[in-house]
């Protein structure tokens, strides 16, 4: 007895299997992007599960967006640092 509803992990595995047709028709480079996106959602399994969503893939999409946002923020910070560095170098030349 006990649990009969599958875990979020197996649920996401199932959804990924359903996306196989979509994935197969992508270019190889794009396949890697898709894999990366799907993998990034796995970092938030607890949150996806805690959402209690009827359609957990919706919560997984949100998790993917969050990971994108994290990367954007990190890149923005890097750009900011590089820009500062560039300005300093240019000022130094002047």
């Amino acid at each position, binding site marked *: *007895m006990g*649990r009969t509803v599958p875990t979020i992990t197996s649920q996401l595995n199932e959804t990924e299997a359903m996306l196989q047709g979509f994935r197969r028709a992508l270019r190889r480079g794009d396949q890697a992007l898709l894999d990366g996106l799907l993998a990034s959602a*796995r970092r938030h399994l607890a949150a996806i599960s805690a959402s209690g*969503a*009827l359609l957990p893939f919706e919560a997984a999409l949100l998790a993917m967006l969050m990971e994108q946002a994290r990367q954007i923020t990190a890149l923005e910070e890097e750009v900011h640092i590089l820009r500062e560095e560039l300005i300093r170098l240019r000022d130094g030349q002047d």
Partner: protein
Amino acid sequence: MVKIERTGWLMDVYTRPQGELVCWLLSEDGQRWLLPFDFPATFYAAGNPGVLRQAWRFLQGRGVRCSRQVRHDLFQGERVVLAVTVDLPGRLPETCRRLAQAFPALDYYDADLPLSVRFVSRTQLPLLGRCRFETDGQRLLDVQPLESAWEMQPSLPPLRVMEIECDADPALHPPQAVTVRCGKRCYRFTLQPLRALLVNLQALLSMYDPDVILTRYGDTWLFPFLSEQAASLNPNRDERMQVEFRRERSLFAYGQVLYRGAQALLFGRWHIDRCNAALFAEIGLSGALEMARVTGLGVQEVVRKSPGAGITAMQMQTALRDGVLVPAVKQQAEASRTLDSLIRYDRGGMVYQPLVGVHRHVAELDFASMYPAIMVRYNISPETLNRNDAPAGLIPRTLQPLLVKRLALKHCLHTLDRRDSRVNDLKARQTALKWLLVVCFGYLGYKNARFGRVESHEAVTAISRELLLQAKESAEEMGFSVLHMYVDSLFVKREGAEGEADFLPLVEQIQQQTGIGVSLEGVYRWVVFLPARRDRRIPVANRYFGVFEDGTLKYRGIALRRHDTCPYVAHTQLEILGCLAQADDPRERWGEAWALVQQRVRSLQRRQAAVESLQMAVKLSRDPQAFRRPSAAAQAARQLQAQGLAVRAGMRLFFWFTRRGVSVTPPSAAEVDWDRYARLVLQAAAEILDLLQPAYEVRQLHLPVCR
């Protein structure tokens, strides 16, 4: 009639074939007593009054006493029942079976209680408990308890232990000799000539008169062998009894196939087969005695059964003590719920994926016996569901003393020096109680648990998830970052927090907020959370290794922990961890560790490893004929079958990889597939070292060239 009064210990109770109950007692003067005792037993039937009247008539003239009573059903409240009492308790199961067959529509109660559970409930005397008893030399007249099951330092009966071992695993080779140890003496007898062996064994049994016979393969080989070859040799102390043989079986439990070997049980003494007693290796005799003491199941039963049987027996004791009927079958149906609610609540514990990588100065906080503690604190019991004002339920009443005792034993252990002679005994007892607590949650949701209910099961996990979220919030409010949470533990770190003292305020805070005890498992000098094997971008729960400040290693989910890893590979991983543990940061030692791996691989390539260290183990997931592909397990199973051995699902098989596949017998060095073992070593090394290798050193771990 001369009455004799003695103090001593109750060792066991059982019934003789005629149905009378016999108590095995050991008095302080060292005498062993096997005394029949008047012990009528009662079961109950309830249901349609007309059918009950028919049942009453059916029982007339069958040597039982019937009466009308009102008893308490946990779910239905007061019920009018037909009480059926038999004077010889051994006759109860058969009487009940016949009645149930004739009247299947009735509900039956107290119909399948273990006899020892009935006995300890009625006499208040736990098994192994100290007592005062009165006898006329023939029968037990009275018995009074002097000790409870919850005694922290129970008195111990002076046991005589005999150990019998054969010289080979009978599943692989027919044994040729047995070794018998009693006290400080050790005897070796060959199986042939058989008569000499039997005479010697009989003589030793009579002379030494052991209370415990501890064997290897006693269940599956020794006692069946003796019974076949020498029916005249009776290893029981009770000469009126024969050895009780129970058949082997494979069952599906805890999400896996389990194999239970045949069993051989004795009367008037115990037989424990180390190879067929699941927990015995971990808890030993002290733990087994503790389990028997608190559960009321005989020692021979507790070492062979799962702790779940122990928890069930404890619940039955609570029910008997409190006048609650124990239903023969569970009948509670799940209340209806919406699809939405099913998805929301039918979930397990909180698993918060770890942040993959190396982390330094990390504390691990554990909720102490989280699930049972929740059941007690939140009064989770099938009859208290959705009731806020309910008095303590049956499950919390059962678990409360168990929790308290285990906590007290743990506390006692902490105060003792590691070298103290009491440490091992306390550890064993504490572990025995831990196992009972571990399974009590699962039993709440077990389909056949008489006092289980799926909604209560879900309530426990829902509360545990909530508590872990509260713990996370507390940690974050105090500036810690939560690296990983796994059901009842969390891993946290904070800049500048390095010693235990830095984490104690958090422990306090979580404890205060949740009302559940929290302990600081320790502070890791470093810990590494590993990613999934198939994709390094995906974190995996409960797969890590680390070293505490005092140098102790802890690892989960790696090859070293798996039962199918061969000793050579496991030892390699342990050596790698030992090497890494010397550094403040494991990455500093990557080079040394890798050199060590190469050395281990070279040893294999030079065929320098002992063949025994290469023995692989596998648990059969299905019967051999059900295998479709010739996996190593299937090949090993078929080889054993070809040797005429019975192989069943759930059995653990041992084999070696050879150039021609696998072999269930130790191969010669020339036959061993050394490259395969080298690959296994590299895989195990990669599991640990991949994540630690410096960015400039990134390379695939591969077989070094043999020089």
